[in-house]
């Protein structure tokens, strides 16, 4: 165990202590104790940053967990995981600080739950990004799903919280399972769970028939977690969580786990057309769908949720496009395409900063006014100047306006899209022209919803009568975290290159490892590119955005804008209801509660199974070679037996039926006599006698046989089934006989042994009895135990009857 292992485990250990701190120090807000941890971890992680031009050497530290299965808790720290770990701990610290002021230290507020879940999430997330072993990643991945659901349902008395938690759980865990399947396929291909080893085998994987299934399964996991279309529907419902949770999980960290996975596995799958197209297409669809849906929302957090979906789509599509760089082996050309990867990493950082700030600002508005509905808000600019400033910067950055960091990543996004559309691989030619158009349209909608958020909340007329509280500025403590985040937005916007060498470049090296071997990436981000296409596209975005916003009042009356819920929710809801209803229907159809039906299922299955076995193994055989002579006695007994058996179902009187059954029993005894089995015949006679007495005793108390009316169809079904049973059993007997005496006569009978040894070894001439008490005495012993249990059962059933009202 190294310090980095403890870094991953530290949040879990702290989570163990939190309830005690909560109990012992009721006066102090528990958040203050928790706050120490992410700050420490953040500062600790900073030391790994490469400073002064040197390259980040990846660290690999292994601790065996289940070595026999190749599962090891291996920490792998490179540029990509360092970037994510810094985001997790850094934003984690800010969120904890914010939550101290957001969730008041009240008696009825279960703070210990909140911080335990949050720490669990933080540890799990660190585990996901720092692990090298796929199974360990999967374990932490599911822990994040679990912690996320717990946090969404933090106010579990609200029905919508529970609905959102269930939805996110179902969707992300479905994806998680499919991801596990994908990981297993990777293991099948490479015989290792270690990502490092798998990356080394990337060349073989591409040629494997399991390549496509593994890729699709893993992508399903990544897409569900990162809220890509059409799995994005859980994210807006997850907004029922407390705002610090939304800011942390549902904008900055957890939803980027899918992004992380895609980036991490780009060296494995990237460079192929399938990977390129699937990720790019899903990313662009998500980008457009999210930005268009965000415009329709009336709830501030819902707008931010759809905006997150859209931005995640943007990053995802950039990663998809960037993977094209891996297609080239020659050193020079790839650099043009790797700009997309650079944009992805850069936007990832930017999005975490401004989206975190925006969520916190929305939380402040909610906290101080009591509502998040944009129809009730307005004119808060003068009342909440600091929050307004934070929102203004955050929204401007999100809309992609200079001089903030969003502008830079948007420019790079456009540059990437334009590069890709001129690409000459993967049949981009015709479809490629669509990419810039889609990206541009989505950017316009992004601009529009940013404008809506800003103007509807902070400008316009103040409506104090609609608000639950008297609006005023938030306490200082609540403002610290968003201020730090927007400062980062401005700083990164003004001096983007401070991140270039320390963070972005190492991360790019991790995503595109085999390209960085010769010389490091040249990352240089600057504002002014001259009058190029990207700039004109941005100008177009602003112009059209303003135009649409100006005409928004006209558009808002259309059905498209009035419909707030995502239409895909209907698919999910009816799918879930249909699943429940469908399984109920299947159960009702099958579990009728009628013993008759269950017998039918069992018998039909048995007949079908035996019939199938006959066909499958060609087992149907007849062989009459070793058949004995049939004596006249046997013929007579058999015919009477058949007649007696057939008569039983037609007898309408119970006692008569018992007598008929008795006849069958005595005939069988006679059969034993003819077939020379005196012991059996004696036993059969006596048992039959005792049984008839017993039957008569019991049935004396029963009512007359009821004449039941059955439909002909029911009767015919029963007839067919019983004939089927008879036929199949007869065929089995014939085949067994043929097998024994015919082609497979290797089956030796052991009876010869008993014939020879019954006298010398056991001292008896009655072979049947010797077998019963000597050779196979154990069977007899257990049989008399069975008899004893049966008799005691009868006594218990009859004697120990409970009085009315008594219960077990």
């Amino acid at each position: 165990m190294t310090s980095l292992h403890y870094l991953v485990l530290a949040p879990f250990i702290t989570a163990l202590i939190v309830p005690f701190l909560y109990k012992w120090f009721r006066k102090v807000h528990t958040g203050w104790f928790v706050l120490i941890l992410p700050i420490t971890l953040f500062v600790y992680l900073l030391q790994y940053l490469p400073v002064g031009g040197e390259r980040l050497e990846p660290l690999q530290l292994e601790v065996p967990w289940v070595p026999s299965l190749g599962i090891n808790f291996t920490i792998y720290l490179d540029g990509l995981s360092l970037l994510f770990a810094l985001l997790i701990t850094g934003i984690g610290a800010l969120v904890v600080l914010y939550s101290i002021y957001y969730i008041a230290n009240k008696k009825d507020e279960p703070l210990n739950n909140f911080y335990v879940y949050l720490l669990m999430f933080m540890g799990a997330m660190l585990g996901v990004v720092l692990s090298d072993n796929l199974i360990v990643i999967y374990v932490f991945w599911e822990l994040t799903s679990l912690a996320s659901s717990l946090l969404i349902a933090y106010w579990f008395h609200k029905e919508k919280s529970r609905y959102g938690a269930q939805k996110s759980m179902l969707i992300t865990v479905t994806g998680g399972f499919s991801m596990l399947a994908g990981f297993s396929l990777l293991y099948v291909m490479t015989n290792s769970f270690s990502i490092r080893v798998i990356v080394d085998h990337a060349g073989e994987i591409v040629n494997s028939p399991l390549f496509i299934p593994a890729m699709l399964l893993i992508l399903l996991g990544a897409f569900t977690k990162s809220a890509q279309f059409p799995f994005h529907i859980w994210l807006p419902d997850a907004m029922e969580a407390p705002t610090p949770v939304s800011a942390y999980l549902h904008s900055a960290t957890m939803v980027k786990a899918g992004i992380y996975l895609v980036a991490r596995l780009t060296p494995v799958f990237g460079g192929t057309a399938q990977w390129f197209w699937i990720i790019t297409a899903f990313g662009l669809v998500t980008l457009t769908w999210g930005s268009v849906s965000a415009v329709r929302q009336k709830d501030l957090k819902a707008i931010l949720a759809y905006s997150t979906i859209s931005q995640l789509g943007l990053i995802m599509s950039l990663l998809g496009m960037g993977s094209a760089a891996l297609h080239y082996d020659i050193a020079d050309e790839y650099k043009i395409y790797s700009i997309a990867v650079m944009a992805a990493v850069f936007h990832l950082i930017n999005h975490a900063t401004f989206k975190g700030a925006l969520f916190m600002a929305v939380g402040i508005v909610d906290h101080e006014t009591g509502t998040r509905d944009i129809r009730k808000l307005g004119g808060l600019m003068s009342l909440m100047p600091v929050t307004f400033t934070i929102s203004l910067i955050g929204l401007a950055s999100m809309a992609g306006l200079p001089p903030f960091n969003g502008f830079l990543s948007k420019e790079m996004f456009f540059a990437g899209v334009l590069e890709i559309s001129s690409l000459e691989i993967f049949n981009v030619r015709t479809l490629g022209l669509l990419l810039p158009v889609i990206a541009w349209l989505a950017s316009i909608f992004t601009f529009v919803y940013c404008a809506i958020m800003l103007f509807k909340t902070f400008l316009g007329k103040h409506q104090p009568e609609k608000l639950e509280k008297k609006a005023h500025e938030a306490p200082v403590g609540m403002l610290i975290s968003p201020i730090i985040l927007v400062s980062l937005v401005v700083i990164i916007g003004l001096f983007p290159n401070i991140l270039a060498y320390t963070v972005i470049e190492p991360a790019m090296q991790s995503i595109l490892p085999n390209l960085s071997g010769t010389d490091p990436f040249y990352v240089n981000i600057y504002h002014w590119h001259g009058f190029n296409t990207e700039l004109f596209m941005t100008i177009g975005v602003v112009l059209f955005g303003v135009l649409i916003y100006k005409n928004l009042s006209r558009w808002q009356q259309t059905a498209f804008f009035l419909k707030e819920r995502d239409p895909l929710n209907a698919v999910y809801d009816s799918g879930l209801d249909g699943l429940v209803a469908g399984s109920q229907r299947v159960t009702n159809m099958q579990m009728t509660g009628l013993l008759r039906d269950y017998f039918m299922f069992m018998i039909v299955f048995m007949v079908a199974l035996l019939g199938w076995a006959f066909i499958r193994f060609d087992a149907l055989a007849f062989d009459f070679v070793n058949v004995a002579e049939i004596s006249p006695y046997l013929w007579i007994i058999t015919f009477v037996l058949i007649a007696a058996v057939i008569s039983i179902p037609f007898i309408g009187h119970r006692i008569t039926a018992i007598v008929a059954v008795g006849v069958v029993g005595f005939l069988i005894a006679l059969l034993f006599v003819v077939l020379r089995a005196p012991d059996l015949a004696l036993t059969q006679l006596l048992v039959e006698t005792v049984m008839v007495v017993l039957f008569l005793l019991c049935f004396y108390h029963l009512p007359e046989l009821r004449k039941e009316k059955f439909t002909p169809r029911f009767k015919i079904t029963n007839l067919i089934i019983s004939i089927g049973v008879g036929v199949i059993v007869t065929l089995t007997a014939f085949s067994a006989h043929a097998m024994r005496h015919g082609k497979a006569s290797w089956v030796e009978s052991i009876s010869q042994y008993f014939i020879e040894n019954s006298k010398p070894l056991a001292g008896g001439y009655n072979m049947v009895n010797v077998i019963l008490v000597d050779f196979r005495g154990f069977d007899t012993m257990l049989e008399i135990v069975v008899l004893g249990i049966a008799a005691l059962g009868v006594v218990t059933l009859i004697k120990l009857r409970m009085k009315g009202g008594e219960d077990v």
Partner: protein
Amino acid sequence: MKTNFLLLHTITRIVTFIILSFSIFLFFAGHNNPGGGFIGGLMTAAALLLLYISFDMKTIKVVLPFDYSKIIAVGLLIAIGTGLNSLFHGDAFLTQYFDYFDVPVLGEIELTTALPFDLGVYLVVVAVALLTIITIAEDDA
């Protein structure tokens, strides 16, 4: 009107002894001829059942004051006991032994541990058959 079962009672008295004797014969004959614990037990049960059918329950209870559930236990213990016996002799569970002895009056006879085992079977079968039938017959609920 009280029915007089004189004929039945008289015959039952005689027949029961014949059947009981026959059942004991079957039990001892088992090792070398058709018969054995199971058949003997059933035959004894049949004889006693005849008694139960012919006479009323109270009388028979005085004549045969057995607790059949205890007899089941005793029978099982005897059967398991023969098995444990072979364990003490260092053989596998339920190994049976036999030998020939010279008895003054009867001449050479064969004695085997299978016989106590069969006795266990016999007791269990008798008790089970009677216990079941009597319990059901006595039930008046």
